[in-house]
């Protein structure tokens, strides 16, 4: 053969390879199990055997393995996978690491997540995008509480297909009885979960048995090898068969002749000419074109990012949804949800957050926490708040209705995150279970006597003046002086303060953080009713947390909530100490006392800030009455 024909044959071979590779689809899976189960070793082994590790990486791996001395001089595959320096030192996987490999049948993205209970949030993160979960169990240990915990989280995140990877079979002499007993034990527990298939495989990640090559040690096992299973499992059909769902991300309007709606199809498919409904408005139109760069497509399918144009001018903006007209989804503003708490700052009933679902962003407050799970045995336990890594059931109320589906029916339409408005942290992952009522069915009874009518009768609008500041800052003094000044002007007022609220309405509440949140929530709701009735309500509470003051503000129309920050430095307030409380707190007799051992968060944009150290009461009140 001449060199030229060899060259031509080679090019043909490469072209064929590229063409074949281009046709592969993608499987995302998660591995769970603790370090001791050999999870990182298993991933390292798969990468190594799929030849995704380069020579220089193997060299550095050999020297790392020697230095660490974890495998007696042998290659420690786990070191390939455990990335961050801190983790290498502690010998644990803290975060989620993503690994990539491919075979001739599929491309794979592996999310490797930590096993310890304190990293549940990382596991949830890894599971959120996974099609399949590989749950590792140490054959010599059997099903442990952490196996159950991982399975529960995986099931909760809607993963339908799991592999029970029974690892370290070499330690139990590859005995079938051990494997069978363990699988039976697992099945009994998994009956409570929502898996469609469980595939149990006997393995040794360390030695490579049944990872890629069928093991000679397990002749009694007739099922697939781990990779054989991952190469063939079918996972996307349900998403493709679902009704068409398309959240609009971006309105593309480069010139007057083109108005397209850009987004990613999250479920189902649609073709040119199909009738679609815009949610939440409910308007109807037909798909004119499906644009993907220079191509005009006949059809778009789940996971595809396209730009859709419609046959008529309808009002559509980011956050809206295009859905198939014959199977639109529900719209609601109250839900029962599952929350996975992900922040150090715990979640309380009454707290309000930003909720992001698809391209929709709304305000949401937790109206109830029904229970939290003991994630080791799925028992329901009562809870007033959710701590980091806790999973619970709660109800949410939104400030406007959103289009959704239960998470179990359609992941992308029921998955959301909660974001703290001040720290901007992603505090919780959430999954919608069901709507508490259909917002579309609820019509607020139209009252002929409304707030405006009452305002006209009284000659002024109902409002709230919300004082906030440290104990002893002068809130009550100012509130009383303000009420007197307003009364003199013929304005109908009422003061809510500790004396009349703590002894009645809120006498069941203490001073824990959870109770403080609830205390303010009730006060805000009462103030809202009174303001609606036409009163100017004056509240005088420390109300130390921004979240609660903001929640109160969100109940009122713009301009009807006047936040007044009584800005008195701690040393002055403590010097005044009108009720002797600071002295008690300093002696440790009053735990959770604001300013001493509980924080005060000053307002970022109060309507008015008064400094009682520098201004007289009359001056302060003079500034205040201008707002009413």
């Amino acid at each position: 053969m001449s060199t030229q024909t060899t060259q031509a044959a080679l090019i043909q071979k490469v072209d064929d390879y590229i063409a074949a590779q281009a046709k592969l689809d993608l499987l995302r899976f998660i591995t769970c199990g603790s370090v001791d189960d050999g999870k990182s070793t298993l991933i390292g082994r798969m990468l190594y055997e799929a030849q995704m590790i380069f020579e220089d990486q193997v060299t550095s791996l050999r020297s790392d393995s020697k230095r660490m001395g974890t495998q007696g001089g042998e290659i420690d595959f786990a070191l390939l996978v455990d990335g961050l320096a801190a983790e290498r030192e502690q010998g644990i996987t803290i975060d989620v690491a993503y690994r990539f490999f491919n075979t001739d049948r599929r491309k794979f993205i592996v999310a490797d997540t930590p096993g310890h209970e304190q990293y549940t949030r990382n596991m949830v993160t890894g599971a959120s995008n996974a099609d399949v979960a590989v749950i590792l169990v140490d054959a010599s240990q059997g099903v442990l509480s952490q196996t159950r915990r991982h399975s529960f989280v995986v099931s909760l995140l809607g993963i339908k297909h799991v592999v029970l990877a029974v690892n370290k079979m070499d330690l139990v002499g590859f005995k079938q009885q051990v494997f069978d007993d363990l699988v039976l034990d697992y099945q009994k527990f998994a009956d409570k979960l929502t898996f469609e298939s469980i595939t149990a495989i006997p393995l040794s990640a360390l030695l490579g048995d049944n990872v890629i090559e069928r093991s000679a040690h397990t002749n009694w096992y007739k099922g697939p090898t781990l990779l054989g299973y991952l190469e063939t499992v079918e996972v996307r059909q349900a998403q493709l068969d679902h009704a068409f769902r398309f959240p609009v991300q971006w309105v593309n309007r480069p010139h007057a002749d083109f108005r397209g709606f850009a987004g990613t199809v999250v479920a189902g498919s649609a073709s040119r000419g199909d009738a679609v409904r815009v949610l939440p408005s409910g308007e109807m139109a037909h798909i004119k074109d499906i644009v993907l760069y220079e191509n005009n497509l006949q059809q778009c399918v789940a996971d595809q990012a396209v730009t859709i144009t419609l046959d008529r001018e309808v009002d559509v903006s980011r956050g809206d949804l295009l859905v198939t007209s014959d199977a639109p989804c529900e719209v609601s503003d109250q839900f029962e949800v599952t929350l996975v708490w992900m922040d150090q700052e715990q979640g309380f009933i009454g707290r309000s957050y930003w909720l992001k679902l698809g391209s929709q962003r709304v305000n949401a407050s937790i109206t109830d926490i029904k229970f939290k799970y003991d994630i080791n045995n799925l028992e329901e336990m009562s809870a007033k708040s959710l701590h980091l890594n806790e999973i619970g059931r709660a109800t949410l109320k939104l400030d406007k209705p959103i289009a959704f589906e239960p998470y179990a029916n359609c992941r992308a339409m029921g998955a959301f995150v909660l974001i703290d408005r001040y720290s901007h942290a992603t505090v919780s992952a959430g999954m919608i279970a069901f709507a508490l009522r259909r917002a579309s069915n609820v019509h607020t009874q139209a009252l002929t006597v409304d707030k405006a009518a009452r305002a006209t009768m009284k000659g002024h609008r109902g409002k709230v003046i919300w004082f906030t500041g440290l104990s002893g800052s002068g809130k009550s003094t100012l509130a009383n002086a303000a009420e007197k000044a307003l009364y003199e002007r013929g304005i109908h007022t009422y003061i809510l303060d500790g004396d009349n609220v703590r002894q009645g309405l809120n006498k069941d509440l203490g001073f824990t953080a959870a109770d403080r949140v609830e205390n303010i929530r009730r006060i805000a709701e009462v103030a809202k009713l009174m303001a609606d009735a036409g009163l100017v309500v004056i509240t005088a509470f420390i109300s130390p947390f921004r979240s609660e003051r903001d929640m109160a503000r969100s109940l009122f129309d713009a301009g009807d909530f006047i936040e007044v920050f009584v800005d008195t430095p701690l040393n002055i307030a403590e010097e005044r100490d009108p009720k002797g409380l600071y002295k008690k707190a300093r002696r440790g007799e009053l735990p959770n006392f604001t300013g001493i051992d509980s924080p005060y968060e000053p307002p970022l944009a109060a309507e008015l800030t008064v400094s009682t150290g520098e201004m007289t009461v009359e001056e302060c009140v003079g500034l205040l009455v201008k707002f009413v």
Partner: protein
Amino acid sequence: MPDYALTHLKELEAESIHIIREVAAEFDNPVMLYSIGKDSAVMLHLTMKAFYPGKPPFPLMHVDTTWKFGEMIKFRDTLAERLGIKLLVHINEDGVRQGIGPFTHGSQKHTDIMKTEGLKQGLNKHKFDAVFGGARRDEEKSRAKERVYSFRDQHHRWDPKNQRPELWNIYNSEHNQGESIRVFPISNWTELDVWQYIHMEAIPIVPLYFAKPRPVVKRDGTWIMVDDERMPLKEGEVPEMKMVRFRTLGCYPLTGAVESTATTLPEIIQEMLLTTTSERQGRLIDHDGAGSMEQKKREGYF
């Protein structure tokens, strides 16, 4: 797979386009860092797709260390003009005045001042709140754990212990003034995916990726190209013409060439499949021990 399901490249493409559009929708002042390399080429192509028939609603920025290959600069300027998008070029002028360069000050100091510091200057100057980068998770161990949205404080620092959880395809774009978010839309692409996609979509790339006879000298076991007259030759060192190409592109004195005969994309892909060293080995800055990239990123290196 069902015949109407997406292939992995189509799925990666869609995921990246989704991310790019999210940023455009939620940030006030995004910018795309354009390094002129193959990963940037893919990222830019995806961006053109995301907003077609419109143009991307944000500019490109190139941090020019003044030591890039001449061919890169030529390619950059032609491309920006052809696509009709705004290109900002930032050079650390303080560094230029001090005469900073890899030959006189060493690779580390040069990179610190002209690249890392230059980048911070450029970002501060325009007050960008979102910055696209073409990093991939398969490049390096510490990148395997980075989020798609990577939060940076006011000093552009990354805190690996305090990353925001990132679930489903929901991204948290909230930030205070002065803080910014680095966005990596091609996080989930591998080097092979990048080459395949360039091939499939016929994306133009800098000719330096293809083998050609080029003047090179051997330094520390690596072929360094004599790209211009600023390169000081050691005694007895004579540039020789070798058939070479580059697997990564950066400052020419810091970028090793590999001997190759690959002059077409299929040949490059074939060479890649047979190769036994990982991509970043061509970059001299990664060689100071395990964990060095993580250290650089904490300090603000991209």
